[in-house]
């Protein structure tokens, strides 16, 4: 009987220990998926400042990558999603703006 109680206490302790480790891991920093999403975002959106120097094909490529990223926003947690959703919109809109501006220039 004593052994059963000791084993039960041990099992419960292990359960709570693993729970707290999981919670700690979740609370400390970003998951692998989040990190990879953000890295890709940084890659796609680092050229907004130079968007007027990009060709129309390059701009279309950046816009389509941004749209791809938008479809995968679900991999981020709520706070990150809120921040990066706005950042991604600004980035995509800037490339679209540059593409439209180029189109307008060509039509003149």
């Amino acid at each position, binding site marked *: 009987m004593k052994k059963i109680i000791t084993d039960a206490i041990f099992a419960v302790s292990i359960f709570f220990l693993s729970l707290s480790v999981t919670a700690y891991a979740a609370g400390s920093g970003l998951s692998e998926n989040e990190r990879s999403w953000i890295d890709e975002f940084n890659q796609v*959106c680092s*050229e*907004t400042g*130079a968007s007027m120097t990009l060709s129309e094909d390059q701009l279309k490529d950046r816009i389509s990558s941004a749209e791809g990223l938008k479809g995968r926003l679900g991999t981020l947690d709520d*706070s*990150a999603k809120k921040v990066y959703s*706005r950042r991604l919109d600004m980035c995509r809109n*800037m490339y679209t*703006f540059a593409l439209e501006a180029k189109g*307008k220039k060509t039509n003149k």
Partner: protein
Amino acid sequence: MRKLFLPLAAVIILLVSGAAFAQHGDGIKKRRPLPEEYGTVEINNYSEYTGLAPVMYPHWLHRSIYTCRLCHVDIGFAMKAGGTGITAKDNEKGFYCGTCHNGKMIFRGKPVFKACTNAHAPRGWLTPEQARRCDKCHSEGKETVQDYDFYSYTADFPKETFGNGIDWEKAESEGKIQLIDYISGVSARRPDLPIPPDADIIPKLEGMPKVEFSHKKHMDLSGCELCHPEIFSIRKSGDHMSMADNFDGKYCGACHGKVAFPLIECGRCHKSAAFQ
């Protein structure tokens, strides 16, 4: 007929005065903010709901340290007050205010104070230090001690007439302030930006001096995506920017009149000897 005259006159007077009252709001001219108040934003998405005072965000202090782009593009703060929907949880996770206010980032030799993490705890549960920390930002209507006093901080900054009473552009060119534009882990590394040419904006009003718009000055502070296309989109024929729009918070008025120098400093944009 005479019996009807008095009530009719009273109704007409009431209607006319009511209309005049409605046109001028509460009938009191809006107070011009003091230099240290200019640009201050009240953030109250959830503060009062959770029993805290609203945050009084001092734009003057942050703009003396960071570019507009860093906060409004890289950190993701919306351009309209209350548009971001910041929560204590976001800050705790290192977003928004918590990007810098995390107790770890070192600025001018000391850690930047941490945003209050247990904001929802009953007041009695907080230590005096925690309560003081919450009050630094959640300060509306409170006498709080801040780390930086506006007047001593800006004492030797070049002066201007309106807004904060500071010529921020000159303060930067004289080296009084050095604006940070990059935070590791938040900002993306950007190549050097090619600067689009400056533009002359010719007013429709005869005799009004043209505006010499400097893309460089604005890009250094704001990057591209802060203005395009949200504030300045592709102009279609027939689209005109007017001063009335600006005063309404559109176009230049999205920043000028709120945080950047106000629109009543005509000569800062309409370059003419008459305005100097």
